């Protein structure tokens, strides 16, 4: 059975391998198992990357279990055929305001909940968090009908209503994401020492000044994490964009994927190139801002 190695300082080190000892002779097992799992997990993406650079005629002739026929034409064609320029622009003008507004409103709610002992502050938080968890499809009908009935000036949307407008989609995203962010931020803000506010109040600082000069700067790490997470989520958001925007040329990148299907039906390499183009922003986040993304995701689950 396992031999008990007590007292060795190494056993105490948190990071040291916990299994066996050098005597167990099975130390290579774990790395091999994990490497195999990792490669299996990476495989679908690697397959897409490799095939996105391959010529359709080549793979049609030799099949996918082959090597060669490399080209970058798929990317050029995918970009042109799918009008990615316009869809990336749409994603940008939906995602950026939605993320900023979500974070700002969440900060407001979290600040009030964390800073003042409202009797109902927990109920308030529950009100927001529950909203975040409801299935969006279940709310579709009333939202859809309301948006269709609400008219907006033409400078807000050329459709004349909230339906088929970026403003409407941004608002829906904000409404759904505020709960999660407010929850995470209020936990974060609660940990700030109250003495900070005390001295600020003595200095005569009003609520707004406390909010902008004390709370927000101290929340920068949490805000960075949430900003990265929300950017990914709203960029990836598919359902609301698909049902609330009626014209294909208004679709953000993620929803426009569905249009590609028909056009690219016979050419999987082109689909692969299109998929990679769509994935680029999130892959950048993955490689550059990984730390923030993970922090944002786990903040809510583990109470920071």
């Amino acid at each position, binding site marked *: 059975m396992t031999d008990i190695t007590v007292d060795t300082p190494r056993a105490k080190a948190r990071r040291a391998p916990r299994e066996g000892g050098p005597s167990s002779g099975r130390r290579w097992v774990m790395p091999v198992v*994990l490497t195999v799992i990792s490669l299996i997990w990476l495989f679908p993406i690697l397959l897409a990357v490799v095939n996105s650079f391959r010529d359709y005629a080549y793979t049609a002739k030799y099949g996918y279990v082959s090597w060669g026929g490399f080209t970058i034409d798929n990317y050029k064609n995918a970009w042109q055929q799918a009008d990615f320029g316009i869809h990336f622009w749409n994603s940008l003008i939906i995602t950026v305001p939605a993320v900023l507004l979500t974070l700002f409103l969440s900060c407001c709610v979290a600040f009030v909940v964390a800073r003042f002992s409202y009797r109902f502050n927990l109920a308030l938080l529950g009100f927001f968090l529950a909203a975040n968890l409801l299935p969006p499809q279940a*709310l579709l009908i009333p939202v859809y009908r309301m948006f269709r009935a609400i008219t907006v000036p033409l400078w807000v949307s050329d459709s004349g209503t909230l339906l088929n407008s970026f403003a409407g989609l941004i608002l829906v995203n904000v*409404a759904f994401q505020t709960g999660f962010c407010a929850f995470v931020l209020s936990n974060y803000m609660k940990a700030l020492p109250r003495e900070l506010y005390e001295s600020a109040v003595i200095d005569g600082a009003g609520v707004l000044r406390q909010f902008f000069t004390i709370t927000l700067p101290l929340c920068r790490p949490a805000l960075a994490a949430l900003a990265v997470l929300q950017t990914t989520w709203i960029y990836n958001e598919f359902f609301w964009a698909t049902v609330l925007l009626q014209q294909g040329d208004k679709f953000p990148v993620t929803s426009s994927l569905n249009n590609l299907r028909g056009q690219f039906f016979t050419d999987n390499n082109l689909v*692969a190139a299109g998929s990679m183009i769509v994935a680029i922003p999130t892959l950048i986040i993955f490689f550059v801002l990984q730390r923030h993304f993970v922090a944002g995701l786990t903040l809510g689950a583990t109470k920071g």
Partner: protein
Amino acid sequence: MASKRKYRGIDQLSTRDKVIVGLMVVVPTLIVLWLVWLPAIGSVLLSFTNWDGIGPLSDIKFVGVQNYHDIATIYPPFWPAIQHNLIWLGVMFFIATPLGILFAVLIDRGVAGTRFYQSSIYLPVVLSLALVGFIWQLIYSRDQGLLNAITGGTTDWYGDPDVNLWAALVAASWRHAGYIMLLYLAGLKGVDPSLREAAKIDGASETKTFFRVVFPVMRPINIIVLVVTFIESLRAFDLVWVINKGRNGLELISTLVTQNVVGEASRIGFGSALATIMLAISSVLVFAYLRIAMKED
């Protein structure tokens, strides 16, 4: 911790500050009320009516539970959809989630190269489920897919109603396991190492230590993982919608609701009844989640 001398309520605030504090709460509350809670109530109310979405609101007739009765009896896709949602949940609960937990536990042992393993497994999490559907098409496609190329088969993995749910579930599990791994890994890092050492000194094997010591103290995370799994299974939509808009073997409650509103036949009352069924199921889960999330405060 904090000094409890002051700050009992908003008493100390000037009138101007009271207005500001009020606005800080009221504006977000109104947005969420308007776009989440009112629609939720609206769905429930409309589900008892026969509105077709065309006539004026004054034409709406109250029809009791007629819509629910129709759904259960004369709406063919309903029971398959329920069945598919349950299968979806079953696969996530019994396969994808335990797999994610297993990965987290293996990675948490701290072998060299942890970062690589962790990153590889959670890479799919940053991709949208819609995109996941497209990436797996390269494997599943009938004429050009890798799976058929290797096996020499001719199965249309996304099209054949006998297999397409399972094909979608493999793709969904691929992403879900990474998500759960991340959540669980964060939880494992918070477990007091001395617990494990005590178990080790007592001669407990690693498996035993996990199930008897680590798993029980992870209760809050376990419940969050559980609720996330249930809610994601109920909300599953994007993946099947990009495959075939949730038809032909891929019916889910979420796609049925959507088809009834956006599709050719807009049956508002009927679709609302489907939506209400979703709301009823999710409210149980939401309640469970809120209790855990708020308990620690």
